C-alpha cells in the first residue's frame, strides 16, 4: 500500500518528466559519445584550478537560461507570459557595459581609455544599476498587465521590440567590448572548482523558493493563475501579485544579462539573450507549469532549462552546425508538446493502470 503511494507521489511530481527527459538525453550521450561525461581539472592562469568538461559547460552556459526560467515560472503561474526577457537581458548587459566604460561622461573616447582594464564606477554600483534596470523593465510590464489590463502577450511584446532598441541607445548603437577583469568573474570565475554562475543560480533559486514558499506569495500567485476573479473576491490584491511576478522576472533577466555579458566580454544590443524568452517558456512548460497558470515548481523549471542546454550541447557535439540548431530544437519542442498533451498523458496513465496490479503481485 505504502509502496504504491510513493510510486504515485513520484509519478505525480512535477520533477519526474523533466528528469526523465534529462536522463534519456544523457543516456543517448553516453552511447553516442563515450567521452561525454569526462571531467578533468585544469589549472587556469587567471581563475586557478577548476573542473572542466561537458557537464560543467552545461551548467555554466545554461545558467542565464535557468535564471530566466525561474522568473518566467512565476509570470506564467499567474496566467501571464513575458516575451521581453531576452530584451531585458540586452538592456542589463548594455547597462553594465556602459557603466564600466571608464570614459563615461567624457567627450573623448580613445581606444587607450577603453582598453585599460579599469572603470570609474564601483563594481557594486554597476551590479545594482544592472539589477535596477531589469527590475524597472519588469515594473513596466507588470503595470501594463495589471493596471492597464493589456493582454500579457501584447504588453510584453512592446518591450520585446523596444528593449533591443533601448539597449542600442544605451551603448550608442555599438557592440561595446568590456575590458574590466573583475566584471568577468561572474561569467568565467570559479569558486571551489565550480563556475560562479552555478552558485548564482543556486542563490537565486533559493531566494525565489523562500519568497514563494515561506510567504503567502506562492499561494497567491497560484490562486491568481487559477482564478483571478475568485482571488480578488477573497480580498487578495491580484494586481500587485501580478506586478511582483513581472518585476521578479525582470530582476532574473537582469542577472542573466550580467552573467552573459561578463561571459562574452561585451554587450551587443542585437544578440544578447536572443530567443531566451522562447527557451525559458519551453523550460517552464517542461517543468509542468500550465501556460494557463496555476500550480508551479521552480525546481522543475530549472531542470527544464538544464534539459534544453544538455540537448544543445549534445547537438553541437554531434557535429550539427550551429545554424541547424533551431531545427533540432524544434524536434525537442515537438516531443515535449506531444508528451505533455492530455491525449498522451491519458494513454500513459491507462498503460500504467493496466500494468499496475500485476506489478503489485510480482513484488
Amino acid at each position, binding site marked *: 500500500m505504502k509502496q504504491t503511494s510513493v510510486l504515485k507521489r513520484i509519478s505525480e511530481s512535477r520533477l519526474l518528466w523533466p528528469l526523465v527527459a534529462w536522463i534519456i538525453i544523457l543516456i543517448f550521450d553516453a552511447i553516442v559519445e563515450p567521452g561525454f561525461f569526462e571531467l578533468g581539472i585544469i589549472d587556469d592562469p587567471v581563475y586557478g584550478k577548476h573542473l572542466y568538461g561537458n557537464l560543467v559547460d552545461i551548467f555554466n552556459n545554461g545558467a542565464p537560461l535557468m535564471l530566466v526560467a525561474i522568473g518566467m515560472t512565476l509570470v506564467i503561474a499567474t496566467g501571464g507570459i513575458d516575451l521581453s526577457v531576452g530584451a531585458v537581458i540586452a538592456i542589463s548587459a548594455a547597462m553594465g557595459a556602459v557603466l564600466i566604460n571608464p570614459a563615461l561622461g567624457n567627450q573623448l573616447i580613445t581606444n587607450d581609455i577603453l582598453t585599460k582594464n579599469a572603470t570609474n564606477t564601483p563594481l557594486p554600483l554597476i551590479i545594482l544599476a544592472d539589477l535596477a534596470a531589469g527590475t524597472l523593465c519588469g515594473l513596466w510590464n507588470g503595470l501594463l498587465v495589471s493596471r492597464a489590463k493589456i493582454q500579457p502577450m501584447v504588453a510584453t511584446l512592446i518591450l520585446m521590440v523596444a528593449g533591443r532598441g533601448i539597449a542600442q541607445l544605451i551603448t550608442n548603437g555599438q557592440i561595446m567590448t568590456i575590458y574590466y577583469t573583475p566584471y568577468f568573474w561572474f561569467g568565467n570565475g570559479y569558486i571551489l572548482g565550480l563556475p560562479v554562475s552555478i552558485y548564482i543560480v543556486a542563490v537565486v533559486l533559493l531566494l525565489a523558493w523562500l519568497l514563494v514558499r*515561506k*510567504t*503567502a*506569495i506562492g*499561494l*497567491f500567485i*497560484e*490562486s491568481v493563475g*487559477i*482564478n483571478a*476573479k*475568485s*482571488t*480578488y*473576491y*477573497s*480580498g*487578495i*490584491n491580484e494586481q500587485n501579485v501580478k506586478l511582483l511576478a513581472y518585476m521578479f522576472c525582470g530582476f532574473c533577466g537582469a542577472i542573466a544579462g550580467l552573467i552573459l555579458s561578463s561571459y562574452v566580454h561585451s554587450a551587443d544590443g542585437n544578440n544578447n539573450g536572443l530567443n531566451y524568452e522562447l527557451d525559458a517558456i519551453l523550460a517552464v512548460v517542461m517543468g509542468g507549469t500550465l501556460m494557463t497558470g*496555476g*500550480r508551479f515548481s521552480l525546481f522543475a523549471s530549472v531542470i527544464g532549462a538544464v534539459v534544453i542546454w544538455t540537448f544543445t550541447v549534445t547537438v553541437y557535439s554531434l557535429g550539427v552546425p550551429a545554424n541547424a540548431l533551431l531545427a533540432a530544437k524544434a524536434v525537442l519542442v515537438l516531443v515535449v508538446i506531444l508528451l505533455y498533451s492530455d491525449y498522451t498523458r491519458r494513454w500513459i496513465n491507462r498503460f500504467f493502470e493496466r500494468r499496475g496490479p500485476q506489478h503489485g503481485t510480482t513484488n
Partner: protein
Amino acid sequence: MTEAKNIVKMLGIAKSFPGVVALEDVDFSLRAGEIHALMGENGAGKSTLIKVLTGVEQPDQGTIELDGKLVQVRSPQHSQELGISTVYQEVNLCTNISVAENIMLGHEPYRFGSIHWRKLNELAQRAVNRLNIDIDVTQPLENYSVAIQQMVAITRALEVLSAKVLILDEPTSSLDMHETNLLFDLMRKLKNEGIGIIFITHFLAQVYQIADRITVLRNGKLVGTYETSSLPRVELVAKMLGRSLTELDALSKEKSHEEEKKDKQHLVEAKGLGRTGSLKPVDLELSASEVLGIAGSLGSGRTELAGLIFGIDTPNHGSLIVGGEKVNTFSPLESLKRGIALCPEDRKAEGIVGDLTIRENIILALQARYGWFKFLSMQKQSEIAKKYIQLLGIVTPSPEQLVRNLSGGNQQKVILARWLATNPKVLILDEPTRGIDVGAKTEIQKLVVQLAEEGKSCVFISSELEEVLRVSDRIAVLRDRTKVAEYSGNVDDQTLIHTMAGEL
C-alpha cells in the same frame, strides 16, 4: 392498467468508477407524453444515469430499450441519432450567430453548392412558430434571454434532430418566474405531442407544478418511482435525504425565538447608496444578530447591492457607514478588514479556486488579511481547515483534495468556511443555495440562522422566496435596481411575490 407505452426502459443499470459505485441496479422508464422528474441529492447518481442514457458512459451492467428494442448507446452522437436530445443548464449554442443558424446547424439546406439562406430562415421560423415561440430567427441568439436560448435549443433538438426523448438538465436554474412559466408551457405542449421529457431540477415546487411522475435516486440506488399526485412534498424530501424533515421545522422555531430582540445597533448603514447604471440609491441598515433577507428576481439589483457593500464596485452616490465610520476606499480587501464578507453568486467564477486544495481555499481570505509575509504555518492551516470541515460538515476524505472535485454544496461550504475563518461581523450570502441539493440547502439555511444567533449580521439573497422567508428576520424587496419595500420576517409569500412583480 392503461399504461402508456414506455419509450425508454432502462433495467438493472450499474456503473462504477474507480473507488465509487455510481449506480447500482437502477431501473428507469419513461413513457411517451410524460414529464418525468429525476430527483436526488448531488451525488445520488442522476447525472451518471443520464450519461449512460446519452452514451457518454457505458454501463457495466443492465440494458437499455428504446421503443421496445434493445439498444446499445455508443456515443452522444449515436444517442442523438436514436432520438435522445439533451438541453443543458448552460446553453450549448453559439450566441453570436443567428437563431436560424443555431437551429439548423449541420442541417443547412443547400442550393447551387452554397447555403440556401432564405430557405434556412424559413425552415427555422416554421420550427419556432410550431412551438409557439414568438421570435425573429434572423436575429443573433445573444439578443434573446437565456430562457429563449433554451427554447431555441429545444427547438433544434425536436425539429432538426427529431428527438423523441428530451432531457432537460436544470433548465430553470437561471430563469426568473415568468421565463420559467414560458418554458413550462412549451414543455406541456411537447408532452401532449407525445414527447417524453426527463426533467432534472433542484426546485421542488417546479416538480409539483409540472411533473407527472418522479423517480428518486439516493447514493446510486433507486428509491422508487412515484406518481406526483400520490407523493406529498415532505415525503419526497424525506426520500431524497433518507431522513425526516423535523430539522426544518426546528429551524423555523429557532427563528421565532430570535424575533424578540429589538434594541439593535446598526453595523452597516447605507444611505442613498448607488452606482449609475447598476443600482439606484438604496437605504439599508444591517444590525448584529439578525438575518436580512433580500428578495428580488434576476436583474433586480440584488447582486449589485451586495457588490457595493462588499466593495467590488465603487458607489458614485450615497454613503456607506460601517461600524460608525464612513467608508472611502472600496475593495474586497478593505471590506475584509472591516469585517464584511461576501459569498458571491457565481460560485465557480467568483468563489472557488478550483485547482487549489480545500485547505488552501479555506485559508485564502484569512491569509489575504494577514498579508504576503505573515504566512500561516502549514500546521495552522491544517488546523483551520479541519476545524471548518468538521464544523460545516464538508464531505471529503482529506483537506488536501482539490475543491474542483467537490459537489456544489460542499464547494459552497468551503467558501463559507473561507469567510467564517476571518470571523466577519457581516456576512453577505448571494444565492448560497443555488444548484445544491436539499440536504446541503437545509444545512446552509440552519447555519445562517445559527450565525445570526451568535451575533453576526447576515444578508441572505435568494431567488427562492420559501427559504428567504424561512431564515429572515427582515426582508427587503428589490425591483428594477432599487429597494421598493421592507417587511418583517413574518410577511406572507403572496405579499412578497406581488411586491416583486410591482403590483403593490
